[in-house]
């Protein structure tokens, strides 16, 4: 099928999948379920139906892509290539140090490793143009990734800037669509069971206390919950399909507001409304950076579009990715007129972009860094990365299906997704920042997760930690590795959250692990599916083989990339040490959670006695998700999922690149990573098994009493239970100063502004009083005087008018006489 037609089919299918939840939302909110019948499940069924059809459309789109672009052949080729590469590498140094040359059978590779020193690469370009292309056999065999972009609807046009609702479809989009709709579908179905206690006219909220000490009674909000879920799905899919960064921002904010609604679903609880506010405000901090990034992009590139692939209209201007990267997929750095380094812009065909006078157009390099950091700041907020990570644990105030869908599997992954999508615009400096932010985050969050006792909080910190892994993976040049982990993590983390939801629902909203224990007997399905998720996230494998659950492969890919990065750049050793240690910590805290909850003796007999397995509507999704969590990544980096994602890998990510700019780094390439894969995998597996064993020793068989460790490490334990004092630090750094400033402003308001206003008012009253006196005395006096004078004059004339006719005649005669006399006296002849 021709390229255009495929694009048409894909965009139509995805648009249907995208808009269906919006349709569902509109009906759920406006059809009046809140008036007619609070016991009706119609709204929930509609939501499930919408998202299920959306999933079918996404899956259909994925299949269309596979069939129409002949992906299976490419998959075979890539898979064989991968297998050959692994064979050739590990045949030589299985289990030993991987500092051997990786050249046998790969002579096409220009780069070679040398023992014990930083790898040198053939650099023919001057330092400023140091992003030099390398040659790679796989890269040559790989056709350009099939991307489809276009416009659904143009919202506005300001000069050259077009604001559009568009689409940008590559395998990343398709995989994300399928993953999001599938997980959302499972969670919708689960939520039908979990939220069933809202199907009432009189819901008693035991966590919301009224002023009189009683519990809050309110009507159930079942339909509303599903309306929010539908709106969220619409927003998330809109974010994924977006064809330009502006549209991403719009839907970015929409998922933010959905998250706000859903965290604050029990908004009568003070803690829930606070958590919702916190999440929203923390995200605003990141979005401020996002906005700056948008402005920089607009002013420097004049477009928001990712890429323009409309072959029928070659005159249309290039998109961001096409401008930033040349035909070889690399950033070309030159000097602009002032002599500062600048990014040379390109046309769609890969030639240099020229202005009207024929001079090459370039953008100052530091602006590109600012734009990248700005966009990444948005990702930090959304994906709860250090230093904006504190909102995510608090977001667990929302109902558990929300935690599963929004705060583990999809929305928080949006930051990672955007970092991956926007990868072609990130310079090595930005990537290094991403890597370090991810590295710090994954370690900090994992340490806190080790001591948390709230079931959902442990999972929340584990989410932050895993998001850190993804960011780190992206940052160390492992584009596909980071996004691979994004997808696998979405499956096993939504599974674990739903399991925890099942436990919480079964234990009548008890979330403290300290009151659980031995639940495996009571809830076998939940317990076993949870175990699948735990093994997946811990990254355990059968030693010496590649038989493992999904998390093993994706984490392996990240650790291998970071190991290679560390070998190329020994100064950045933290970027390898942190994820390696954290691999152990992850296994520890996840197994701690599982042992705590499902094994051992019941710690609270009351909770244990009343606990029960959840109905099928809840355990069904668990089983489906557990299958996916286990097997979605079969084959690892030679498997379908990874290669599917890898197909959309931005050009130029594949080769090892030495870079000298603001920072000097060598970005590891595919072959280098593959050569370190075995070693990294072994290290990570050892770490994971160590963590598991320790957890087993402490919480499984009670070899060491946790209380004793707590006592002996009281300082560290306290530090960790206070979450590294982040909340306290932010409280001191931002909240208190804000309060202080607010108080100061209030004081100024009260004293100065109110004082001036009061004084003005008093002056006005005084003036008015004087005015009144003037009015009453002077103006009224004058008017009255005129009246009284007129009256008295009239009165005096009244006496004259006697009505006596003869008298009048006398007057007339005398007057005439008088007039005559006067005339004759005054005017004599």
């Amino acid at each position: 099928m021709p390229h255009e037609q495929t694009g048409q089919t894909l965009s139509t299918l995805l648009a249907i999948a995208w808009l269906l939840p919006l349709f569902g939302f509109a009906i759920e909110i406006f059809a009046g379920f809140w008036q007619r019948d609070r016991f009706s499940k119609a709204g929930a069924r509609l939501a499930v139906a919408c998202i299920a059809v959306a999933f079918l459309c996404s899956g259909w789109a994925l299949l269309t892509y596979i069939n129409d672009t002949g992906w299976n052949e490419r998959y075979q080729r890539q898979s064989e290539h991968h297998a050959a590469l692994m064979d050739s590498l590990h045949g030589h140094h299985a289990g030993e140090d991987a500092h051997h040359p990786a050249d046998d059978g790969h002579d096409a590779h220009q780069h070679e490793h040398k023992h014990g020193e930083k790898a040198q690469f053939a650099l023919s370009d001057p330092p400023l143009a140091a992003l030099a292309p390398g040659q790679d056999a796989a890269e040559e065999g790989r056709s350009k990734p099939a991307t489809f972009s276009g416009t659904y609807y143009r919202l506005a046009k300001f000069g050259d800037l077009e604001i559009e609702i568009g689409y940008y479809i590559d395998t990343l989009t398709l995989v994300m669509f399928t993953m999001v709709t599938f997980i959302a579908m499972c969670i919708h179905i689960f939520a039908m069971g979990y939220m069933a206690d809202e199907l009432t006219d009189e819901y008693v909220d035991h966590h919301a206390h009224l002023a009189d000490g009683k519990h809050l009674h309110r009507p159930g909000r079942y339909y509303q919950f599903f309306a929010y879920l539908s709106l969220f799905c619409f927003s998330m899919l809109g974010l994924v399909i977006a064809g330009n960064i502006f549209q991403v921002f719009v839907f970015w904010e929409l998922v933010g507001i959905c998250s706000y609604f859903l965290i604050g679903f029990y908004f009568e609880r003070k803690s829930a409304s606070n958590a919702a506010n916190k999440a929203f405000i923390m995200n605003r901090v990141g979005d401020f950076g996002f906005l700056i990034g948008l402005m920089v992009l607009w002013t420097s590139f004049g477009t928001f579009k990712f890429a323009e692939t409309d072959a029928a209209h070659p005159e249309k201007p290039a998109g961001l990715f096409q401008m930033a990267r040349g035909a070889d997929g690399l950033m070309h750095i030159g000097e602009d007129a002032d002599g500062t380094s600048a990014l040379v812009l390109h046309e769609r065909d890969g030639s240099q972009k020229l202005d009207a006078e024929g001079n090459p157009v370039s953008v100052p390099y530091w602006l590109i860094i600012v734009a990248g950091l700005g966009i990444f700041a948005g990702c930090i907020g959304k994906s709860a990365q250090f230093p904006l990570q504190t909102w995510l644990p608090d977001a667990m105030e929302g109902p558990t299906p929300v935690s599963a869908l929004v705060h583990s599997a999809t929305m928080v992954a949006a930051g990672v997704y955007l970092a991956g999508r926007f990868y072609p615009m990130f310079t090595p400096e930005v990537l290094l920042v991403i890597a370090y932010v991810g590295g710090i985050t994954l370690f900090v969050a994992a340490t806190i997760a080790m001591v948390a006792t709230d079931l959902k909080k442990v999972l929340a910190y584990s989410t932050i930690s895993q998001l850190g892994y993804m960011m780190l993976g992206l940052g160390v040049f492992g584009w596909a590795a980071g996004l691979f982990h994004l997808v696998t993590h979405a499956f096993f983390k939504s599974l674990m959250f739903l399991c925890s939801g099942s436990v919480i629902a079964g234990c009548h909203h008890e979330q403290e692990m300290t009151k659980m224990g031995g639940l495996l007997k009571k809830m076998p399905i939940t317990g076993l599916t949870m175990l699948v998720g735990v093994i997946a996230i811990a990254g355990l494998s059968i030693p010496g083989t590649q038989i493992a659950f999904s998390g093993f492969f994706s984490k392996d890919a990240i650790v291998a990339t970071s190991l290679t990065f560390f070998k190329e750049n020994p100064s950045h050793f933290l970027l390898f040490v942190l994820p390696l240690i954290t691999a152990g910590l992850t296994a520890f805290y996840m197994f701690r959670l599982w042992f705590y909850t499902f094994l051992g003796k019941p710690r609270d007999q009351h909770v244990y006695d009343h606990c029960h397995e959840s109905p099928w509507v809840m355990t069904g999704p668990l089983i489906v998700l557990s299958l996916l969590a286990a097997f979605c990544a079969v084959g690892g980096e030679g498997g379908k999922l990874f290669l599917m994602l890898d197909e959309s890998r931005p050009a130029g990510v594949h080769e090892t690149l030495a870079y000298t700019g603001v920072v000097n780094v060598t970005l590891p390439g595919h072959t280098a990573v593959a050569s370190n894969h075995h070693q990294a995998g072994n290290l990570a597996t050892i770490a994971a098994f160590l963590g598991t064993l320790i957890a087993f020793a402490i919480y499984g068989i009670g070899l060491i009493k946790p209380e004793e460790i707590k006592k002996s490490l009281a300082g560290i334990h306290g530090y960790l239970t206070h979450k590294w004092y982040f909340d306290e630090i932010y409280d001191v750094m931002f909240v208190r100063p804000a309060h202080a400033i607010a108080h100061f402003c209030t004081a100024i308001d009260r004293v100065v502004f109110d004082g001036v206003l009061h004084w003005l008012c008093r002056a006005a009253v005084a003036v008015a009083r004087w005015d009144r006196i003037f009015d009453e005395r002077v103006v009224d006096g004058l008017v009255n005087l005129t009246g009284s004078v007129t009256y008295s004059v009239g009165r005096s004339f009244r006496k004259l008018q006697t009505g006596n006719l003869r008298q009048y005649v006398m007057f007339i005669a005398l007057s005439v006489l008088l007039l005559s006399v006067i005339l004759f006296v005054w005017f004599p002849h």
Partner: protein
Amino acid sequence: MSLDSYLLIGAILFVAGVVCMATKRNGIGVLMGVELVLNGANVNFVAFSKFTPLGLDGQIVSLFVIVLAAAEAAVALAIALNFYNNHLTIDVDRANELKH
């Protein structure tokens, strides 16, 4: 006869009329005074017309005055009759009701 003698007669008639108007309490008497005053004036008009080159202007004006006087007498007599009908007297000093 000179102009003065005409003016003298006119003046006598005028003064007599005024005195009549000022002294009579009888409404008809007052009317008669008015006629005297008017006729005094007429004499003057005619006299001035005769002794100055005014032609017949004075005569015409006096004829006009006579017609006016007739009309005025008719109206005034009607008032007098009505007054009598209501008050059984034609004493003008008794016509003081508007004052109150």
